[in-house]
């Protein structure tokens, strides 16, 4: 009772042929030693070719591993009178330990990098908050100039310690003439930092230009901090990429039972050599690839073929390492070990697929690619305009405009736009059993146009189930099931278990079976209440001359559907047929329909036979032209690659180890159900529970997330882009406004709020199976989706208007004082104001040199005006008393530019 639909797959996977082994020989002195050893080796049965090299002291032997093994070769050399260096060859390929060590060190490094990112992010954000509190606090304790000097040091440290990676990454992109989000961050924060340093070190230069010595240390630090935080959040969701390989390596057996001189010794797997004889007992993993030489068994090869029904193995059949022996015990001869095994090939395939997968360019990077050059051009234009048309000092003002544009162009919400949407999106998915590994997976899943579905375990249950019990003439169907169930309750075979499970539903106890016997690979037999009952495949029945003609039609029908057929014979007569198949999940057809309604092309891919594949495709509604059957793990990946080469964005959905390379190769690998750990590790999305409708839900969620990311990025940039003209100084001629830290902070705050709240809106997407609503499309849909963010913008502008109106109101109620600077003197030289009330000083400079009006001893009560211009200053002094005001330009106060301010 077995299905051999997978036989061709196994054969091509593990071609048996001569293998080569190199043995280090000791004690050779001359050419005759060489001849002697070669002669002795060649007359050893199984050896095809032997070449001994005197200089390297090595014997290279080609031999048939099914006939001879290392021990035979060694004894041949020993018979010739020489020794083989012990175990030297054996330690050459410690594959497993190598791979594991590699994987572990990669993991440790990754973890270290993540911790570093988090620490840098938190320190930057913390520092930025401290800077902000210091800078925007009513400054009566410390003057801004002194504060700046204090902030300069931690700010510089953060700029290069936490921000260092942006420089490296920007440099890397810049060398190819490209620009990424990192370029934008590097340029923007550097501009902010450098400008602030100049302001701090040479406040006079800024003063003379008639500007306030304001710094942007906080902007730089918060941008670095938030972007690093976003990166950490994304990284954390990403998980270990090397996990799949670790799991694969973990799949292999740890030891093997070496048969030598009739004795069995348990040895480390790494010590097994091609040609060694190995004993595999029931329930054990097959240690390496090889050929069965003695015994019989059914081996569960589902990890390679996806076929849930174990394959029968007779002497001469291939067995594959890491597959699981079910019932029988057998002796195999190892043919391929270490890096040559089928499992190692899968490891290599996964590695190759993971390595070759081009990283998807993040959307923020794509924006930066055009945004960065545009910003630089705009900044350069404003520099040129100020330099050619602006007032003196031209260079300083032109530079300020240039830097202002660059500073404001780097939106800190950009760092939050993607991670927050991804966090909410993945969180939402997790509630429904859609586990998404990181942002790239979501971004990629949002762009899919093709979905490849594995058959076993994805569309089908992946578990053998009784499809039909057909009693022969004159046989009661319940009686038939009862007998079959009783007999099979003694068996461990998965097909038997399917029969037992069905019989158990009947709730009749099992009867006593006498003389139970498993006929390995064929079936079982036993005596129940004096009747001899046989269950087995056609071969077992034919061997016993049992006529199956009555079941010919049913057999054909089930074979057409890919079911496995077992026969039941009672007392030498065929009594019934039991068809066992892997049934299609109830939700599969609906799942395929939904995917197609979303505009996705659906393919079916399976290692199973063509007939089974077609039958399943028919049931779920996949076009026959898009069914690919009888493919090996490597070919599954190749099918994915081929579709990708056609320019398609391909998702692969599967559950088996055999799917791992294809999962890794696909743009999005989706592991479904209670699939193998390896499949989960190799995939980008895991669907818990195995409902195939979740595939559509996952893609729908990804599309919604992608849309949110797009909106976020738009609004993250929008406020800053709006402020670019301000930074350019477009408003300066009319209102005297240029960029200042308060404006920059406001833009940061509004865009961050927009982005975070917009991401939270993703929570309303219904991703439950079958509940997915189609996305709004068309210009109207986009408009409705953006209504929320537009609302935030309106509120923000209303608030800005309110602040502006309040400002005006204060101005209206304030006491206005006009001060004129002329001939290095103030007019008037005495001003009276009231304590605790707003005062507006309008300072007009009529001299051909810069002047300012500063109240001594009070921080920030200072207005500077360039020749011929005026400056406004609004302040409140709470403490009554007499103060002195003066011009801080060197020698001006001494020349008599002073006055008295009396506060009553």
């Amino acid at each position: 009772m077995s299905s051999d639909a997978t036989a061709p797959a196994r054969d091509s996977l593990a071609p048996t042929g001569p293998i080569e082994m190199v043995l280090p020989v000791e004690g050779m002195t001359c050419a005759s030693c060489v001849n002697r050893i070669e002669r002795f080796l060649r007359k050893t049965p199984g050896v095809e070719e032997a070449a001994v090299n005197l200089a390297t002291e090595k014997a290279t032997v080609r031999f048939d591993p099914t006939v001879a093994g290392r021990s035979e070769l060694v004894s041949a050399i020993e018979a010739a009178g020489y020794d083989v260096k012990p175990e030297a060859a054996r330690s050459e390929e410690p594959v497993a330990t190598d791979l594991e060590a590699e994987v572990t060190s990669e993991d440790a490094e990754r973890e270290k990098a993540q911790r570093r990112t988090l620490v840098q992010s938190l320190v930057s954000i913390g520092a930025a908050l401290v800077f902000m509190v210091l800078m925007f606090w009513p400054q009566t304790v410390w003057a801004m100039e002194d504060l700046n000097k204090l902030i300069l040091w931690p700010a510089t440290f953060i700029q290069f310690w936490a921000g260092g990676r942006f420089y490296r990454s920007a440099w890397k992109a810049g060398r190819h003439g490209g620009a990424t989000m990192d370029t934008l961050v590097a340029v923007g924060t550097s501009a902010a930092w450098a400008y602030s340093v100049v302001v701090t070190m040479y406040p006079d230069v800024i003063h003379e230009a008639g500007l306030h010595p304001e710094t942007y240390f906080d902007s730089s630090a918060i941008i670095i901090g938030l972007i690093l935080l976003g990166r950490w959040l994304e990284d954390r969701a990403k998980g270990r990429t090397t996990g799949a390989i670790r799991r694969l390596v973990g799949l292999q057996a740890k030891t093997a039972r070496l048969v030598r001189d009739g004795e069995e010794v348990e040895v480390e797997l790494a010590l097994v050599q091609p040609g060694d004889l190995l004993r595999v007992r029931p329930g054990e993993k097959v240690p390496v690839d090889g050929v069965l030489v003695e015994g019989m068994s059914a081996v569960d090869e589902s990890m390679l073929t996806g076929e849930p029904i174990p394959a029968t193995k007779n002497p001469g059949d291939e067995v594959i390492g890491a597959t699981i022996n079910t019932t029988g015990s057998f002796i195999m001869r190892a043919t391929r070990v270490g890096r040559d095994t089928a499992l190692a090939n899968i490891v290599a395939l996964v590695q190759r697929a993971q390595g070759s997968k081009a990283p998807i360019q993040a959307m923020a990077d794509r924006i930066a690619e055009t945004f960065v050059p545009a910003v630089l051009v705009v900044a350069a234009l404003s520099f040129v305009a100020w330099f050619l048309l602006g007032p003196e000092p031209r260079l300083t003002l032109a530079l300020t405009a240039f830097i202002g544009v660059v500073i404001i162009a780097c939106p800190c919400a950009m760092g939050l736009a993607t991670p927050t949407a991804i966090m909410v999106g993945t969180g939402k998915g997790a509630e429904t059993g859609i586990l998404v590994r990181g942002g790239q997976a979501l971004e990629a899943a949002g762009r899919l146009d093709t979905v490849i579905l594995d058959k076993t375990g994805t569309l089908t249950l992946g578990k053998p189930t009784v499809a039909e019990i057909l009693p022969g003439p004159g046989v009661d169907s319940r009686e038939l099931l009862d007998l079959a169930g009783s007999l099979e309750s003694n068996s461990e075979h998965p097909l038997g278990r399917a029969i037992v499970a069905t019989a158990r539903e009947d709730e009749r106890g099992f009867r006593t079976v006498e003389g139970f016997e498993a006929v390995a690979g064929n079936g079982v037999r036993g005596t129940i209440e004096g009747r001899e009952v046989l269950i087995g495949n056609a071969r077992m029945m034919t061997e016993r001359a049992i006529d199956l003609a009555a079941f010919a039609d049913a057999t054909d029908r089930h074979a057409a559907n890919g079911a496995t057929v077992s026969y039941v014979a009672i007392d030498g007569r065929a009594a019934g047929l039991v068809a066992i198949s892997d049934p299609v999940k109830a939700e599969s057809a609906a799942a395929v329909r939904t995917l197609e309604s979303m505009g996705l092309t659906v393919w079916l891919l399976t290692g199973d036979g063509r007939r089974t594949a077609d039958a399943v495709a028919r049931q779920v509604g996949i076009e026959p032209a898009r069914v690919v059957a009888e493919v090996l793990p490597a070919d599954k990946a190749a099918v994915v690659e081929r579709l990708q080469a056609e320019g398609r964005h391909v998702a692969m959905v599967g559950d088996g180890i055999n799917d791992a390379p294809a999962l890794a190769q696909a743009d999005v690998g989706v592991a479904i159900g209670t699939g193998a750990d390896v499949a989960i590790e190799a995939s980008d999305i895991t669907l818990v529970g195995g409902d195939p409708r979740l595939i559509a839900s996952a893609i729908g969620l990804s599309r919604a997330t992608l849309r949110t990311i797009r909106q976020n990025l738009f609004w993250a940039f929008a406020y800053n882009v709006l402020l670019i003209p301000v930074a350019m100084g477009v408003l300066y001629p009319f209102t005297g406004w240029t960029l200042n830290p308060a404006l920059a902070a406001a833009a940061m705050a509004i865009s961050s709020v927009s982005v975070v709240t917009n991401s939270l809106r993703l929570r309303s997407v219904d991703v439950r199976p079958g509940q997915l609503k189609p996305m709004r499309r068309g210009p109207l849909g986009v408009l409705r989706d953006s209504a929320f963010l537009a609302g935030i913008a309106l509120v923000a502008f209303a608030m800005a208007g309110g602040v502006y109106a309040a400002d005006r109101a204060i101005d209206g109620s304030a006491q206005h004082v006009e001060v004129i600077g002329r001939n290095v003197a103030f007019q008037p030289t005495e001003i009276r104001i009231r304590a605790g009330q707003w005062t507006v000083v309008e300072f007009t400079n009529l001299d051909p040199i810069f002047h300012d009006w500063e109240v001594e001893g009070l921080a920030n009560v200072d207005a500077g005006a360039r020749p011929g211009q005026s400056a406004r200053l609004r302040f409140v002094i709470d403490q009554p008393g007499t103060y002195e005001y003066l011009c801080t330009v060197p020698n001006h106060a001494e020349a008599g530019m002073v006055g008295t301010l009396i506060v009553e």
Partner: protein
Amino acid sequence: MDRNVPNGQEHGGANSSDAATTALDPVCGMTVDIAGARDRNLFLEHEGTTYYFCGKGCKLEFGDNPTRYLDPSYVPSM
């Protein structure tokens, strides 16, 4: 190398009355240090003559079939 040249069997198989310090390996034709060969047990007596060998392989080869290597038409494989 031909065994019949002066450096041939007489010398190689010599049992050292002429105090020779080297001998020829009859199998491979290599020159062998007699003292060294004695130390390593790389010699065989055959019909009253002691033969010295370069290594175990030659000694075993010779032991398996001495007449083949003592045949005048045998040419050492080296």
